């Protein structure tokens, strides 16, 4: 682009890639300077992941040139790319599930000491290296992936939606690690759908639209508008806004759809009680591992509580299998799409899967009716299903949309969403917020865990904050700004001063984007946020 060919660390010019009839990349160019954090932006399906895979040799381009430090290169495999200093953390976890972490590290020749160092830096201290990858939660897997890449000290590190599955505290650590690369001689290519992250760590941004590079922008205060405009090919202001919430018209009048009393499970979930009413979206806010995973698993019928009560529509319910929960009207948009999708099957079969699970629906399928229902859901969620005969070929964001579409297609009474907008681009996120509001308007009840705190104010009527396995606070949607939620999530009293770093970050971020950023968990751990210890160690007295 504008930069001269010399002095560039990595340069890709006019890269293209077609899959059958689907054009993934048509003319993508990217130039990365040494010492910069370079954002790669674009809507779902724009080709970001494909470009990263090409740069690291996981996918072979149809045409285009790639030069590293001015010398042209053909990269044949990720291993070769790694030896040449190009390493990527891909969008989906790339650890082999049936090997333990140590064996996984050996596969990529990762030096152990730096790996441990980065793991600690990233906020995961006591990882047992002999645990099977498949047993670890998604967030931990992502961090392990990142630490592994950082330990290799590549010239160019590519992070494809690294932060998408992470709760606020871990995200902050990742952003710190990324920022620490600025100004050195190594660079980072950073992909995220969260503009706030781009604003806080990136120097420049290359924007892709439909497989083409449509612009390179210096990231400065106010450049977001420009980036969005380039991404979407339309003015940001034209994006539909989330409709205002109608006043809370529920509470005492209706029987709650779900009412949870003293739910507990293992060491993580201690004692959670709340009510979810028809017509409302209830937010759940928590840092990593505060029991939210167990709560959702129990409500979805995947796990049984060790104690506590669950009432659905006023009568006691006990789920032995997800099918029981579904029959009771509780459907679950899972945290990890790899758990929810049939990767080798079509978009259609994935969406229609819940329709045929009951024995009396095992017979002939009414294909026409099914197509209509599926098509309606596909267009409602704006799924780009061009590569839809196998879901694994869809872009990450589009796969995520399929997991939501599956339940929307059948009509929703109660939807349990665990980070449903993970990896979804900003325009579609708006659509999903609208969708959740529409569902609520139509009488559905929605429980929404989100790691992107600003979603709470946008869509939730109220939010509960879980800390150490207990509900520690309830906040009404209108008051649920990020600072308040964070304070609550770290279980700080509202009159307590925020840890310095939290405050500092808040100010800094406000000047950039009028939004707040998660606090530095490292500092919080020394300051008043010391309570943010894992729940097992948390003093039960500090929680209500």
């Amino acid at each position, binding site marked *: 682009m504008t930069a001269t060919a010399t002095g560039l660390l990595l340069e890709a010019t006019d890269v293209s890639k077609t899959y*059958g*009839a689907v054009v993934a990349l048509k003319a993508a160019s990217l130039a990365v300077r040494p010492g910069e954090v370079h954002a790669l932006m674009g809507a779902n399906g724009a080709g970001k992941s494909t470009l990263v895979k090409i740069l690291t040799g996981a*996918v072979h381009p149809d045409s285009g040139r790639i030069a590293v430090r001015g010398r042209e290169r053909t990269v044949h495999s990720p291993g070769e790319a790694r030896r040449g200093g190009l390493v990527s953390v891909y969008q989906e976890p790339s650890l082999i599930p049936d090997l333990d972490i140590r064996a996984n590290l050996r596969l990529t020749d990762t030096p152990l000491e730096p790996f441990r160092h980065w793991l600690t830096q990233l906020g995961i201290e006591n990882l047992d290296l002999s645990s099977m990858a498949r047993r670890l939660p998604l967030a931990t897997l992502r961090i392990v992936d990142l630490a592994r890449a950082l330990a290799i000290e590549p010239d160019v590190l590519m992070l494809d939606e690294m932060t998408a599955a992470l709760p606020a505290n871990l995200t902050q650590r990742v952003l710190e690690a990324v920022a620490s690369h600025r100004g050195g001689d190594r660079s980072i290519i950073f992909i995220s759908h969260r503009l706030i992250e781009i604003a806080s760590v990136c120097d420049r941004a290359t924007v892709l639209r439909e497989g083409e590079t449509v612009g390179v922008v210096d990231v400065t205060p106010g450049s977001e508008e420009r980036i969005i405009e380039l991404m979407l090919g339309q003015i940001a202001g034209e994006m539909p806004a989330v409709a205002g919430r109608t006043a809370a018209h529920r509470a005492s009048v209706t029987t709650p759809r779900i009412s949870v009393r003293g739910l507990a499970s293992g060491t993580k979930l201690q004692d959670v009680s709340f009510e979810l009413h028809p017509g409302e979206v209830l937010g759940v806010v928590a840092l990593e591992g505060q029991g939210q995973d167990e709560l959702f698993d129990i409500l*979805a019928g*995947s796990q049984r509580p060790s104690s506590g009560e669950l009432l659905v529509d006023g009568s006691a319910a006990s789920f032995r*299998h*997800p*099918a029981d929960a*579904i*029959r009771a009207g509780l459907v*679950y948009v*899972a945290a990890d799409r790899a*758990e*929810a*999708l*049939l*990767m*080798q*099957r079509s978009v259609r*079969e994935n969406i*229609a*899967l*819940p*329709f*045929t*699970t*009951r*024995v009396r*629906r*095992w*017979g*002939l*399928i009414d*294909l026409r009716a099914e197509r209509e229902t599926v098509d309606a859901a596909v267009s409602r969620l704006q799924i780009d299903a061009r590569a839809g*005969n196998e879901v*694994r*070929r869809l872009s990450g964001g589009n796969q995520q949309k399929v997991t939501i579409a*599956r339940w929307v297609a059948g009509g929703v009474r109660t939807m349990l969403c665990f980070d449903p907008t993970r990896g979804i681009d900003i325009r579609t996120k708006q659509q999903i917020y609208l969708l959740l509001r529409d569902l609520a308007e139509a009488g559905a009840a929605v429980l929404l865990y989100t790691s992107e705190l600003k979603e709470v104010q946008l869509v939730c009527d109220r939010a509960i904050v879980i800390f150490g396995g207990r509900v520690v606070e309830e906040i009404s949607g209108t008051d649920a700004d990020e600072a308040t939620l964070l304070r609550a999530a770290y279980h700080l009293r509202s009159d307590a001063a925020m840890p310095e770093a939290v405050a500092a970050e808040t100010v800094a971020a406000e000047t950039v984007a009028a939004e707040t950023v998660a606090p530095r968990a490292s500092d919080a751990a020394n300051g008043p946020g010391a309570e943010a210890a894992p729940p097992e160690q948390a003093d039960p007295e500090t929680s209500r």
Partner: protein
Amino acid sequence: MNASARANEWLTAVTWRRLLRDRPIVPLMGLLAILVLVIELADPGIVSPEWTGVIVRASVPLAILAGCQTLTMLTGGIDLSVAAIGSMAGFVTATLVHSPGGVAEGIIVALAAAALAGLLTGIGVGVFRVHPLIMTLGMSFVVLGLSNVWQLQMVQTGAGVPDSLRWIGSSTLAQVVPYNLLVFIPLTLLILLGLRRTGYGRLLYAIGDNPVAARLSGTRAWQVLIVLYVISAVMAAIAGLLISGLTNTASVSLVDTSLLPAVAAAVIGGTSILGGRGGFGGTIVGALILTVLTALLTVLGLPEPTRQVVFGSIIVVVAAAYTRVTSES
């Protein structure tokens, strides 16, 4: 996509890979045609309507047994009990030929016994989560043992493959069209329809593709698996009856030699042993390929050991080709 771009694309290796993966039946038909051509070259004049009839007749029971493998492999399982169950069915029917209910009674008892074995296998796999390989292997020993007991019991009464089974298993219309197609065609239509158009078929693929996702969507896998292994056992019994009619033999190990070819036919036909991918159409072609291949090796007059080596090598090559192709993203 305009027509010329399509035509260009047609020629690339990538497209061929895709074709082999998405529509395996097309290249398989090609392979079958090549084999037929080779056999015609090796022995000019051999390919005739009558020869085709013989090939089809021999392929039908193999295709049914391979169908058992296809269905179970779609869920990530396998059914090694088909040989024992198929043999048992033919054997039981032959021993009951002089019973008051005659042939009908024999067949009904045989199918019921098979279904019972399948039910137990299904419970083992679906409810107690025993690996299908182990469960079906164990079940085949159980069935074999019981067949032997039965044999000792029935040693007094006269036994023989009933005429009706011989007719359906080995006769042909006008020396060309085998009558076993009367069983095979309806069965095939049922399976194809079942896999493509029914909720049950969808669940087989779903369980094989991602059991966790299937469960989270409300599938109770045990229900699906129990029904599956019953279906598979009944199909194995049907194949056993046809083989018994074809060979005019009834023995407790009659079907044993068809077990591994059945697995091979399913794999060659494009069904992934890992589950979630494949179909019965490819399996039928796979069975035809193996039958023609056997005929070819016989025509070439190769000694038996060489034949086995060639046979095995071809299966490995085709299976390896699939692995390469399907692992490409």
